[in-house]
């Protein structure tokens, strides 16, 4: 038995579409990944990459074609596994006739929680997602963001070991997002494993320990955020004050990757330097020619840039 909370090994899934003329769509083409205990894992990918299909296979909503998957040591989709999972689906629909409290009563009962336990927890839970005052309000009066937060509350109601969140901050305002981030951070500290599927890469960058980027049913890249956004240590960005032409002539023997200037003596220059000696030499050269150095930094990539680079290949 694997020690991973989620252990996916060469999962494949093909959908049949069309009624008269059947077409086959390969949604997953051999995905393999592991998520460890207490990890916040992000699953990224463009629309149609197969992220939601993978989540549904983990929950047993969709059957896999081949491959192996276990969740918390149980076969993916088994009732034993589902008992320990909290799930927030994308575009979930909590029936209109529920209030915040009755929705928690219902979904808690489905997770086999005694009513007394649900009643004891529900107020605190709604408070944690910022819906304390809305427990008796019908769900159809909730905004999109409020419904999303209520969905998150029902997902953590039964104290699951693994949280699977499909676009958890979709439609939530910045304040609500911050609240959700705090809650997820709190859950991480409690040792919960969180598996997030999101398009909001800035959110993922802030929350996740590791991510996997999926394209056309295959994992393109997987690792820690730093690993994904890592660039060679030879890229340096200089912010200078001086004449652009003069600066370009001074540094002509170095590889200039990019130059930007707003026309008022302020120049941002991206250089490829092979060693720290070369950095010192460039600094000396600029200072000798009275060029002011406003800032100097090693160049970093955002997750969004890394994601775009990967999926545009």
């Amino acid at each position: 038995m694997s020690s991973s909370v989620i252990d996916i090994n060469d999962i494949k899934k093909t959908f049949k579409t069309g009624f008269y003329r059947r077409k086959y769509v390969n949604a997953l083409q051999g995905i393999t990944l592991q998520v460890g205990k207490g990890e916040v894992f992000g699953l990224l990918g463009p629309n149609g990459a197969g992220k939601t299909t993978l989540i549904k296979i983990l929950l047993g909503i969709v059957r896999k074609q081949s491959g192996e998957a276990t969740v918390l040591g149980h076969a993916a989709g088994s009732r034993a596994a589902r008992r320990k999972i909290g799930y927030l689906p994308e575009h979930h629909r909590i029936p209109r006739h529920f209030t915040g409290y009755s929705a928690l009563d219902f979904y808690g009962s489905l997770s086999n929680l005694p009513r007394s336990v649900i009643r004891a927890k529900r107020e605190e839970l709604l408070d944690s997602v910022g819906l304390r005052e809305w427990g008796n309000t019908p769900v159809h009066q909730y905004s999109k963001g409020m419904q999303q937060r209520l969905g998150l509350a029902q997902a953590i109601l039964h104290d699951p070991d693994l949280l699977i969140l499909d676009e958890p901050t979709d439609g939530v305002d910045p304040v609500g997002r911050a609240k959700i981030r705090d809650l997820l951070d709190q859950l991480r500290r409690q040792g919960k494993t969180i598996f997030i599927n999101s398009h909001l890469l800035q959110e993922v960058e802030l929350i996740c320990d590791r991510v996997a980027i999926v394209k056309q049913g295959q994992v393109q890249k997987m690792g820690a955020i730093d690993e994904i956004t890592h660039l060679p240590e030879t890229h340096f960005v200089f912010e200078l004050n001086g004449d652009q032409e003069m600066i370009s002539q001074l540094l002509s023997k170095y590889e200039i990757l990019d130059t930007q200037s707003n026309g008022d003596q302020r120049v941002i220059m991206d250089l490829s330097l092979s060693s720290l000696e070369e950095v010192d030499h460039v600094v000396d050269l600029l200072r000798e020619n009275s060029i002011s150095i406003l800032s100097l930094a090693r160049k970093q990539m955002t997750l969004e840039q890394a994601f775009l680079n990967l999926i545009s290949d």
Partner: protein
Amino acid sequence: MRAYLAIIRDSFHEAVASRVLWILVGGITLVLAAIAPLSISSEPATRIQRSEFKNGASLIKNIQDILQKEEDSSSQGYLVSKLSEKIQHQIAKIDEVEGARSYYNLLSSLRGEWNDILKDKDFHQEKYWKTSSLSDEAKKLIAINKELRTKLQTARLNRVLLEKTFPKNLKTAQTDAIFLAYFGRKVGKTLPFPPAYVNTLVNYRILGLMGFLGGILGISVGIMVTSPIIPNMYEPGSIDLLLSKPVNKSLLFLSRFAGACSFVLLNTTYLIVGIWLIAGLRFEVWNHNLLLCIPVFLFLFMVYYSVSALAGVIWRNPIVSIVMTLVFWSVCFVLGTSKLLFEGGLLPKPVTSIISIDDQTLITLNNRKEAFEWVESESQWEEVFREPESWANTFSLISPIYDSENKRLITLRLPQSSFRLLGGFGNFMVGEKKNDWKLILGAETPSNTFDFFKTPDGKIRTVSLSGVHLFQGDISQEKKSFKILGFDLAPKSGIENFKKISPDVSWKQPVSVAHHPVSGDLIIYEAGDIHHLKLNSDAVYEIKKSFQLDKVKKKNPDVDKKILTAFGNGQSIIAFENGEIKII
């Protein structure tokens, strides 16, 4: 279990929240409130009903003879003279060859004029009806001054006089006539039934009401209201959330199905218990079988809802679910109607028994419990009675026998198998000539009685699954009951008039008995076995011989449910439903 109960509860929660439950409960309350003021009231019977004419053709012939006379000073002549010239002319002209339709129309016109005569204060003339020959009721009415008589008293007197004038052609009216009342006010005309038929009438009407409210309206509304439940559950955002919980997919579906059914059960129970209470409290008709409609309607709903739910799973659209259910209903309706049409209308109704009464009258009974008497003068069969409670197949009748000493028909009314849950007791039914052979409920028989016969010395013996009994009481005496809310709390001691004249046995269905008319011996077929019972010197039956008739039938006794046995000349014949006949 908690999860599935939560789903069932949620179906109610959804119905309550969407106000559908309140709308339905409100609608049912309105229906019940509309029915509740209905009642049946009675008044002395006066109006002549179509069914009260006897031998219509001979009546017309009588009137024709009177019209041909120059003068007729009899009461018949007086009555004919009261008819309008138009109808006198029509009667004089009608010819037998003109057919039944003309006779029917003429009798209708005649009935109309006679009903007008009922209002005539001056109709009674002493010279035509000698007071001494009239009934006590008529004498009392005549004693009242004609100007002081109420309309009802006048009509009642005239009706009695009409009956006296044409006793062979006009049946004696019941003492009371019944009519429908709403808030105590008479609605429509007097009903063409005697008061004794109120029970049957109300049951008929309830049956019709149930057929419409429950069978058509109830099921339709139920399907429309519950059709979105399954498609809503299968909406993408909803089903994913439900399936992520530790629940079984099949049980999740079945719980939703059960939720919809329990919602319909609640409404059906309210409607039917309401109608049952109204029938009991307003009409004193406590028909407990009505309560069986609750599970029956629920089952019917489940059949149709299965189609709706299946369509909901496939197409996930309530409208498509309703349409598919409607298509299924139409197919069932066409099949059912075709069956009824063929069985009820096109196929002949087989005669199940022919009874000869004193070698003068012949009565036949068909499989629909309709009895016909042969009218020699008109060379045709005339309907005598219809078994009133055959409407719901609640009971079956054993072929009647004629008791020549007491001049009456005796038969046995047995509960049908599906209603034996309410007890296996049957009743004798007795019909007398003076009541046009109409069958009246008589003494109760021991539990699980299945046949009876009359011995040459006129004694009645019944055969039940527990043995043979001799009846010693008054056969036309119905058992006294003690009822509260229609439930008979009197002990089921219908057997106090019966004496056991056989060993204790425990025979099984299917069972059939044949009686030797001279020796009194019995041959009993019982689930593959044959028993020969012989009377001893104490007139008690002893089992003389028992043997297995057929191994296959012993093993599978229910294959042939209808068995017929006959006994005579030292041989007995057993005929089975599949056409097989065995001679022993």
